[in-house]
């Protein structure tokens, strides 16, 4: 069975009484250990797809199975649990909390998972070591560069040892060289067996992945 399987995913937004379809029947499968990019121009529905795959949103109709679980049936609390156990998000603008230190940012998902504080600190430190930023552990996100911030964000995404890393334009705010470093990091993670999904509109980024899913006007491009 696939790690991710969607059947006829449809998402319709209602804006001032007008129905705007964002996804119009998407069926796809992603297996454990895959390194996939979801590509499409802006407005293609790739963000919506990512939100549904990331369990931040539910489809209007259709089915989404994650690890065999029917996500479309779950309530919000269960969705929050799945987000924190199975999914690690990496965002274009890093989305670190500016008021707390980097290591506290990495600890955040573990906090909500109820990991004891000593254990949390130990694991967060190991993860920062893993992304080469242990020397920045007690700085704040505002005191480090964009590339470093994205590494901290990746360490945070790995906090609860999730099955999937879901990255939304992870290199969008970085220069080319730093962007490449981040993509290398994803490749490393994938080579360790982790499933990585990168949402992007940048062909150079998608070229690094092993499979490209193209989406346009809310449908998969054949």
């Amino acid at each position, binding site marked *: 069975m696939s790690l991710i399987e969607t059947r006829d995913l449809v998402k319709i937004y209602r804006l001032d009484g007008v129905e705007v379809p964002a996804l119009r029947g998407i069926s796809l499968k992603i297996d454990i250990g895959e390194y996939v990019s979801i590509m499409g121009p802006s407005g293609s529905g790739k963000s919506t797809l990512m939100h549904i795959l990331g369990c*931040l949103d539910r489809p209007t109709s259709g089915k989404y199975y994650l690890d065999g679980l029917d996500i479309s049936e779950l309530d919000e609390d269960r969705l929050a649990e799945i987000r924190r156990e199975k999914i690690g998000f990496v965002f274009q603008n890093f989305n670190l909390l500016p008021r707390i230190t980097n290591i506290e940012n990495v600890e955040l998902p573990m906090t*909500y998972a109820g990991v004891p504080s000593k254990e949390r600190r130990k694991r967060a430190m190991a993860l920062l070591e893993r992304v080469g930023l242990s020397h920045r552990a007690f700085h704040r996100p505002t005191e480090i560069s964009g590339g470093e911030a994205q590494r901290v964000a990746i360490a945070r995404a790995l906090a609860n040892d999730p099955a999937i890393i879901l990255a939304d334009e992870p290199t969008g705010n970085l220069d080319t060289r730093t962007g490449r470093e981040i993509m290398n990091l994803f490749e490393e993670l994938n080579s360790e067996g982790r499933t990585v999904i990168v949402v992007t509109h940048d062909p150079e980024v998608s070229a690094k992945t092993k499979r490209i899913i193209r989406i346009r006007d809310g449908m998969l491009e054949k």
Partner: protein
Amino acid sequence: MSIVTPIKTAYTGLKANKLRSILTTLGIIIGVGTVISMVSIIDGMNRYVYSVLGDLGTRTVYVQKWEWIIMGGSQTKMRKLWREVERRKGFTLEDAEAIKKLSVVENVAPFQPIIAGKLKYRSNSVDCSNIVGTDREYIYITGYEIQRGRNFTDQDITRSRRVVILGSYISKNLFGDKNPLGKRISFRGHKFTVIGVLKEKGEFMGNNLDDMMLIPVTTALKYYYNPRIRPYRVWYSFRILVKFRDDVPLKKGLEILEELIRIRRGLRFDQNNDFALNTSEMLLSAYRKLTSGIFIAMIGIASLALIVGGIGIMNIMLVSVTERTREIGIRMAVGAKRRDILYQFLFESIFLTSLGGIIGVLLGFSIAKIVDVTTPLPASMPVWSVLLGLGFSSLVGLFFGIYPANKASKMDPIEALRYE
């Protein structure tokens, strides 16, 4: 998720906005500070009043022309009341003798106040405020004790001797460390021989209880009492102190006493009393009425301040929720449930108001201490008032924090993440 985490999270949030947090809690600080200082002062006064009035004995009855507590209303009405009191028949030594014969009575003392004046001994002089004509029973009823010398004898009374027992304050001022016994002092043209000195009693509501001198009641009536001087017809009118036996219920004693006096005054059953039986119990109940009024007013002021403070908290929390929309989105994305977000903001507002409560308690306590030191009002801080202050301030945080926290927890994570 444990209880510690949201508290820590809330603390971090507040630390980032120190000045704003303090300003926001000002209403709470003032509200709690008011309650604590007022409660401390009133509680201190209560303890004081009860201890001193208790000393005096709530079982002591003052038989006299006027009621201690005359609730008149308008000024003209009050004046009319006092004119009526003035026309009433005064009490006499014979009344005191008759009361003494009642079986329910333990002690009876006549009590003739004399208008204050100067006491002199050689070149020393002192103003004495409380001058009382009475007999040997007086000190048994009022709780004074003779420190040196002797009490009055029957002969002092029957022969209207010019002898005097001095309060410790008067004795100290006239004689210093010297032995006052047997010395002759003068008061308004008459010489008195000192036969005793009272033990020190201290102060009550700013009144010096040792600023006092006792002379035989007959001497007071003979040399100083003058019905043509108006105070002697009202404020300084003759009264009788009565103390009932311990095994007699106060109510029962009062009934018997009232009956006797009505008969002696020839009152018909349809006529109202033209005299009063005053007890310190009456003073206490009037005092209680007064302080409960202050209490209610204070609770009003404090709740107003707390409500205003609470609205301030709600306002600032709403601002905070909006400012941190993105943070909420991030927290939800990494796995925070709606409940986690709700608790975070709820704890933050409770934390804020409790902080205000703690500062308010300290402020109130300082005010009470200042009042205690600079005025005759005593202050004491009861533990329950502190708990009440802290409890109420956190309740305000809970109540006014629910709406903003709920708003935060109801956010759509995707919208929140997009928020700039």
